């Protein structure tokens, strides 16, 4: 045998060994390929390149970092619900909650997170939904950037926001609808309420996140100078922390609606506000789907994708913009954590039980009753509604009468279309508001 033949033989042997090693590696990875394995094709997309990129991060670093922490909270929630379906509620309500509130939120990450690392199993369950969230979060971030860019005039900000929305909608496979959706889609489905019932504290934390995510637009918009914007943002962030002081009492009792929390923002950029409400509604829907054992594990992906489809389309569960504003008001801002600017030092007292489900007229947005929970406390004492009973018109009227009016912002800025402007006229006359009509005016920095 010549040396060359020997070398050839050795190479052949090495190749065989190599192939064997690679095959063994693949097998060692033990890819689970169940019958329902899904072939999904989708791509992530870069944010819109613009001069305002990362302005919010530069100007409002501590608030920006909190948003990174919020991403962690959402991700670990879904991963835990999906991978530990039989775990004690304490895993989320005690352990993970403490980790978040005493650790992650106190020392938030300096950069946006790669959520796949935190929720790998959930990301594999429903990558389509995960990408929808990512895409909407990109819009969230870029909206802050625009409003934080002191180089832009108000008209320049309007133009920049219009471009952001157009860019966002250029991915119809990922974009939430900018048509308002009835709360029925979020909380009157067969799987609804499972999460808030089983994990009230974590649910309240998520609602507090959502309060701040939509609430922070308001100080950026109504502040009359960079200094005022800075101080208002600090106050809004402090208000968020205040909500975590005594869970769940101090937490939002309802999903914060953008038109209520940030009325100036919702009036100026209604499409964005609606998209964010739809985004936050779908967050709750996925929590319910994952938390509800009535949805079999092999149906969870299908339910999530169904919800995702309904939140993307412009035809399902829709209501008019005016009805959406009315519904937001009738849900009661005091039940959502209160306004994000111009608030009093104490948190407003909720007028419904935690996680109550109000029913609304889809055409007008007006409240029609309670499907779950009831009105409570304060001026509502003695007007308790039957928790399980469907719709009591009288009780509904009682509750509506006590809905707290929108709190005007501290600045003189007047929204072009005040969110709550038309709604009060439609509301039944309140015998006595739960709080004075404009109690929060002139108190931009209650926490200072």
């Amino acid at each position: 045998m010549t040396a060359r033949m020997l070398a050839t033989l050795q190479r052949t042997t090495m190749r065989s060994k190599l192939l064997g090693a690679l095959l063994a590696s693949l097998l060692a990875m033990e890819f689970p390929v169940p019958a329902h394995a899904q072939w999904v094709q989708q791509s992530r997309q870069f944010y819109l390149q613009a001069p305002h990129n990362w302005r919010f991060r530069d100007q409002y670093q501590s608030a920006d970092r909190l948003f990174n922490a919020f991403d962690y909270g959402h991700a670990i929630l879904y991963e835990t619900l999906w991978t530990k379906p039989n775990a004690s509620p304490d895993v989320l309500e005690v352990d993970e909650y403490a980790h978040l509130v005493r650790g992650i939120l106190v020392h938030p990450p300096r950069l946006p997170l790669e959520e796949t690392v935190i929720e790998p199993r959930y990301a594999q369950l429903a990558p389509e939904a995960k990408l929808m969230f990512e895409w909407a979060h990109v819009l969230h971030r870029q909206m802050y950037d625009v409003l934080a860019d002191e180089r832009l005039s108000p008209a320049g900000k309007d133009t920049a926001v219009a471009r952001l929305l157009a860019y966002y909608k250029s991915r119809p496979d990922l974009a939430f609808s900018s048509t308002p959706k009835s709360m029925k889609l979020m909380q009157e489905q067969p799987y609804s309420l499972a999460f808030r019932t089983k994990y009230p504290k974590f649910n309240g934390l998520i609602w507090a996140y959502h309060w701040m995510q939509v609430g922070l637009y308001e100080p950026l918009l109504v502040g009359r100078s960079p200094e005022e914007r800075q101080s208002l943002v600090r106050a809004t962030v402090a208000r968020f922390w205040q909500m975590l002081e005594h869970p769940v009492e101090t937490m939002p009792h309802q999903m914060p609606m953008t038109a209520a929390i940030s009325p100036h923002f919702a009036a100026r950029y209604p499409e964005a506000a609606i998209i964010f409400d739809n985004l936050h509604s779908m967050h709750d829907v996925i929590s319910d789907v994952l938390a509800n054992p009535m949805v079999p594990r092999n149906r969870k992906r299908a339910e999530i994708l169904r919800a995702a489809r309904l939140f993307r389309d412009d035809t399902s569960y829709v209501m008019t913009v005016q009805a959406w504003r009315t519904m937001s008001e009738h849900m009661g801002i005091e039940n959502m954590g209160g306004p994000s600017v111009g608030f009093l030092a104490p948190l407003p007292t909720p007028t419904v039980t935690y996680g109550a489900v109000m029913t609304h007229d889809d055409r007008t947005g007006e409240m029609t009753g309670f499907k779950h929970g009831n009105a409570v406390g304060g001026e509502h004492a003695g007007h308790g509604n039957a928790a399980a009973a469907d719709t009591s018109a009288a009780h509904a009227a009682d509750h509506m009468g006590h809905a707290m009016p929108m709190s005007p912002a501290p600045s003189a800025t007047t929204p072009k279309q005040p969110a709550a402007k038309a709604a009060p006229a439609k509301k039944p006359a309140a015998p006595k508001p739960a709080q004075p009509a404009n109690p929060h005016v002139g108190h931009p920095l209650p926490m200072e």
Partner: protein
Amino acid sequence: MQTQSIQPCARALRRAAANAILVIVAMFGRTAAASAQTDFYNTDAGRPIRTEDAYPVERRAVELQLAPLRLERASGGLYTWALEPEIAVGALPQTQIEIGLPLAFADAGVGRTTSTSGAAGLEISALYNLNVETTLPALAIAGDALLPVGGLAPDHALTSVKGIVTKTFPFARFHVNGAYTFGAEPQLGLPNVLELWRWFGSLAVDHTLPLRSLLLTAEVVTEQPIQDEEDVRWAVGGGARWQRSPRWALDAGLGRWFTGADQTWYATFGGAYAFGLPWRGRGR
């Protein structure tokens, strides 16, 4: 293959490499935030290890590998430096197009009486991600053409194909790469500065520290060099990729070929800057 002996050019390349290092070191030390978000998680071939994941850069993203440096030390203390500037563009959905211009400098040594430097080809590649992970792993295919541009390039174009598999577990992510180069063996008058291969296979594992935007990775690689007479060789390597700021990701790696004719050490160091393609769409 022509052998060059252009000392001024070599000095210039060394200076460029030194400057690149200074720039990157300065970047590490900056306190103010530079203004992709999680680019550190998207590993690219050679950054910091040869094995890459099955995902392209984000759609409409542009990633500039500005000063990716590779230093190789062969037995006997001979060094080969390479700068491999690249631009990657998320041109289409799930698709990345990449163009690179590797520049190399090699010390004088066996077979060479003087040091040598120059361009080592023009590399054009495309990666297409076939699917995102579900219960199935993510798969991608890539094609690459190395064109004979520059004094250290092969004498004819070489084309290769690669398959990539990525599977994520809660504790780690695994990647398998396998590639094959087509065409006749090129005439190389110099050591194989680009480490051209007939085929290679690799397995990598990475672990991410998400709150620190840091990825740690390690790999084992085996390859048949492009010269048929050379033996199959094996290497191990490792490295890290760190998101410095929303736009900057830095990487560093170290490895060693522990079989084959040249049992060399190598190190890589680089920075990637990401931005978006201009978008002409308008709002209302």
